[in-house]
């Protein structure tokens, strides 16, 4: 772990927090999205599995320190034990798997459409499918809803997250054109 790696991790953690503070950008169709989970996807897609997961872990630690770093000014140990904690702790494995898949699916020499498909797939598998497994399992346990009902309650958030995965894939392609950085 070089000092540069430490810098990328720390500043991407800051970026994830900052994306929860900047007002949501209204997308076409007028659906406002908060951008924090987009930051987690980008951490995996751009930094790669290890550094992406570490950036997520830094944010999770800041939450535990009681700082209001989550979207809407939430933070504190209450979040750790709250009903949505699985969606917070899931960020670390989500960023890791997203980055891991991005390393294998995104090759610079392929066509832009293929790169987009690979990055979008990495985001959907890691930052949506895996994240929802963590989040729904904890939600089902805390609220006693049972897995199927907890899944049903979480469904309305999926379309917005699919849009974010598409945005993250496009942003990653453009960023990597401008800034050369190996994923690790």
């Amino acid at each position, binding site marked *: *772990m*070089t*000092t*540069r790696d*430490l*810098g*990328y*991790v*720390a*500043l*991407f*953690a*800051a*970026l994830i*927090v*900052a994306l929860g*503070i*900047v007002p949501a*950008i*209204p*997308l076409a169709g007028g659906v406002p999205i908060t*951008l924090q989970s987009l930051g987690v996807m*980008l951490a995996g897609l*751009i930094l790669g599995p290890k550094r992406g997961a*570490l950036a997520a872990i*830094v*944010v999770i*630690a*800041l939450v*535990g*320190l*009681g*700082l*209001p*770093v989550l979207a*809407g*000014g*939430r933070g*504190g*140990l*209450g979040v*750790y*034990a*709250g*009903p*949505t904690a699985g969606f917070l702790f899931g960020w670390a494995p989500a960023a890791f798997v997203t980055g891991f898949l991005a390393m294998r699916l995104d090759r610079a020499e392929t066509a832009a459409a293929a790169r987009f498909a690979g990055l979008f797939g990495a985001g959907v598998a890691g930052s949506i499918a895996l994240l929802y497994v963590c989040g729904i399992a904890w939600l089902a346990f*805390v*609220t*006693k*809803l049972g897995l199927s*009902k907890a899944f049903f*309650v979480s469904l309305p958030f999926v379309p917005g997250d699919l849009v974010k995965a598409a*945005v993250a894939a*496009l*942003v990653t392609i*453009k*960023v990597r054109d*401008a*800034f050369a*950085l190996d994923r690790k």
Partner: protein
Amino acid sequence: MIEGLGGEGQSWFHRLPAGVKLIGLAALATALFLVEHRGALAGAAGLALAALVSTGLGFERIRRALTGPLFVIAAVGAVDWIFLDGRTAATVALRLSALAFLAQAVVATTTTEALSEVFERALGPFDRLGLIDAARASLALTLALRFVPLIVEEATAIREAQAARGLSNHPIAVIVPLVVRTLVRAERIADAIDARGFPPQKNSNSSR
């Protein structure tokens, strides 16, 4: 953005060591998940609220701190009521409320410095085993916090610049330059840290 954090105060809760408060909170949180009796949970929630009030925070600050968590708890309770039954909803809502009150009491009476000190001490054993570098870990936390306001400022500046070019509210046009500038800034900071020889290396092969 770091307001809402605890600190000054003379209550008995303020005087407890941060480590004791954190371990107590973790133990009570675990215990609460083992209790199913609604009366006991209601008692726990009442006691936790009393503890929160005893910190002398004042009604307005407590109300502001609890609005968000109580909204989530109400939503969870409503979902449980609709899909399951009123009893489960009450059990779950009481348990989560007790947790929210306790956590708020701890956070409101503990400074960030004290908390991060506890974190660093907790990381100590892992540091000695060579699994984690406590100095670097706390440097990452401090750096991240320090740069949040600067990145927010940069995002606002980029949005204004794009709006002036007629690209208002195009998410990709805002996020791409924001991410690139963040990466460039991270490199510069890393070089500045290296130039100052921080954090001190423990052995010669840990740096590269």
